[in-house]
């Protein structure tokens, strides 16, 4: 979000968005917990939980942290660190399977 100043009207629009995001986050939290109590098998439970968490995190990052209207340079930085993070997760997981044929999380 550039610092060229926001008109009061604009901010009020923002505030409505914040309230909507808040409600979505609350609902999604409840959904996560309810799914948790369903005692699904591990793989679907993992996928659902990570999916919901990613959506929630995306909402926080996009609206509360203003990434949706942020400058290119910041978005690049975010993608860079997320890319490295995923590479790290992926390589470490594959490493284990590759080593002894261990099943990952029942997949």
């Amino acid at each position: 979000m550039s610092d060229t100043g926001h008109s009061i009207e604009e901010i009020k629009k923002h505030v409505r968005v914040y309230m909507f995001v808040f409600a979505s986050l609350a609902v999604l939290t409840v959904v996560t917990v309810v799914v948790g109590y369903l005692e699904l098998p591990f793989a679907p439970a993992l996928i659902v939980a990570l999916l919901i968490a990613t959506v929630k995190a995306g909402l926080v990052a996009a609206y509360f942290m203003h990434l949706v209207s942020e400058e290119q340079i910041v978005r690049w930085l975010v993608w860079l660190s997320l890319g490295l993070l995923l590479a790290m997760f992926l390589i470490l997981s594959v490493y284990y399977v590759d080593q002894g044929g261990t099943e990952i999380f029942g997949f």
Partner: protein
Amino acid sequence: MADHAAVPEGHHGEDGHHESFWRKYIFSTDHKVIGIQYGITSLLFLLFGFSLVMLMRWQLAYPGQPVPLIGWLFSDDTMPGGVMLPEFYNQLGAMHGTIMVFLGIVPLAVGAFGNYVVPLQIGAPDMAFPKLNMASYWVFFVGGVIMLGSFFVPAGAAKAGWTSYAPLSVIESMGQTMWLISMVFLITSSLLGAVNFLTTIVQLRADGMGFMQMPFFVWAQFITSFLLLLAFPPLEAAAVLQLSDRLLDTSFFMPSGLVVSGEVVDVAGGGSPLLWQHLFWFLAHPEVYVLVLPAMGIVAEIIANNARKPLKGYKVLVYSLVFLGFMSFIVWAHHMFITGMGQVMSTFFQTTTMIISIPSVIILTALFLSLWGGSIRFTTPMLFALGFLPMFGIGGLTGLPLGLAATDIPLHDTYYVIGHFHYVVAPGTILALMGGIYYWFPKMTGRTMNDTLGKIHFWGTLVSMNFIFFPMLIQGLAGVSRRLYDGGQIYAHAQDVLVYNEVMSIAAWVLFVFQIPFIVNLLVSMKKGKAAADNHWNATTLEWSAAPSPPVGHGNFRDLPTVYRDPYEYSHPDHDEDYWPQDVPPAEASEN
């Protein structure tokens, strides 16, 4: 340009004149002072780390014999009767590695040169966050004090190597806890520094300086800072986990059923020693590039300046650097081939490792080609830069067999590896850093260093370093393990190459002797060196052309410079002088 020296009175009056000694020299927020603080501290640490290894080399050359002259200085816990105990040898080894890497070279290459030179080269009045900069130095300082302090705790400093492999490091004595705490400080300091460098380079470039007008040294610091920023935190995480293993008795790195001295260790188990190696090398491979990239940057500056022609393939150099930075995050497990990696992973890491050698070769080749057809001035810094090229070449090429699992497995635990990475870091990076000191000394002090002493220093260092590290490669190929307290005496296969132990040790002490002219030169030249012109080397980059030597107090420039051209316009056909500074407006040039 001479009139730059005359700083108008009162220019920096509001922040320059009435600062107390403490604000001006100790808790300064001026990047130049902080750079010099980093420089002095890291040079002292380099000397200290070198002293540790000189002691070790006595034990390796003459195992079991009392150390002459200084042996009596040590306590009975370390060297009873002057004879080194194995435990003390391990302490020296671990601390030599740690101090050289984290307290010597990184703070010298990034903390000192980066801090001093980067804002000047991009035409910035200071770093973007001066207070953070000061904090970064003092956090580093505290980390260093803790690291040194660990020698004095019961059972001495850390003994598990600079890599601190678990589970050995977890069952170690208290020194290891100090090591971990110190590392947390050092990592924090690097992170603060990296945030500051990146913000400064992105935000505070002078008018007209696009990314492709930045001097190559700034690019090197830029990529280095990214590596520090993104590779160090996993090690911080790992340090926290190991601290918790040591202090809270958790088992992150402790496998089930671990037996120490015939007894099963009383922990929950289920942890993975390999996890430590993964997290450690996730940092430590990019760390190798943190050690090398600033050196490449310094060498590029010196070569362009002394060959009096633009760098060959500046853009290619920059792209190689960026690619190198990316790739360095996905090659880490080539340090772990002997851990029994599966085929898919080992193929992956061998491939990435071979790929990452390409940009390094491009950079080295471009630097060599930059010499072609130049009218080379063999100044002292240029000698060091020229020394760097073949030395780094040997270091890089000896690394290739280590990047392939089939050849790495027999070589991995031998002196070959020690020889390889020392070629990269010692005759490679350290030569370049020394060159940087000779190159920027006139900028920092307004005086020059003595050329004769400098040349003695260079030739002595170059020759003796090769006598130290080349025999290591030979010993390693003969299969001598790198972790032997007696240098391999008891092994039949080592007998033929044992003679090199003495050669290497003597060369190490000779290397020390050749550092004396450097130390004398540095100290004497500060006060008594010949006065240097503002642009002592007739250079084109902003730190020389737009700022006096030494630069004016806090703020660097009288007026922030504007950039009109690429960084290395030497011997330009449209310009009379053989250098065309970045900040000289085109109109002024026609008057010349």
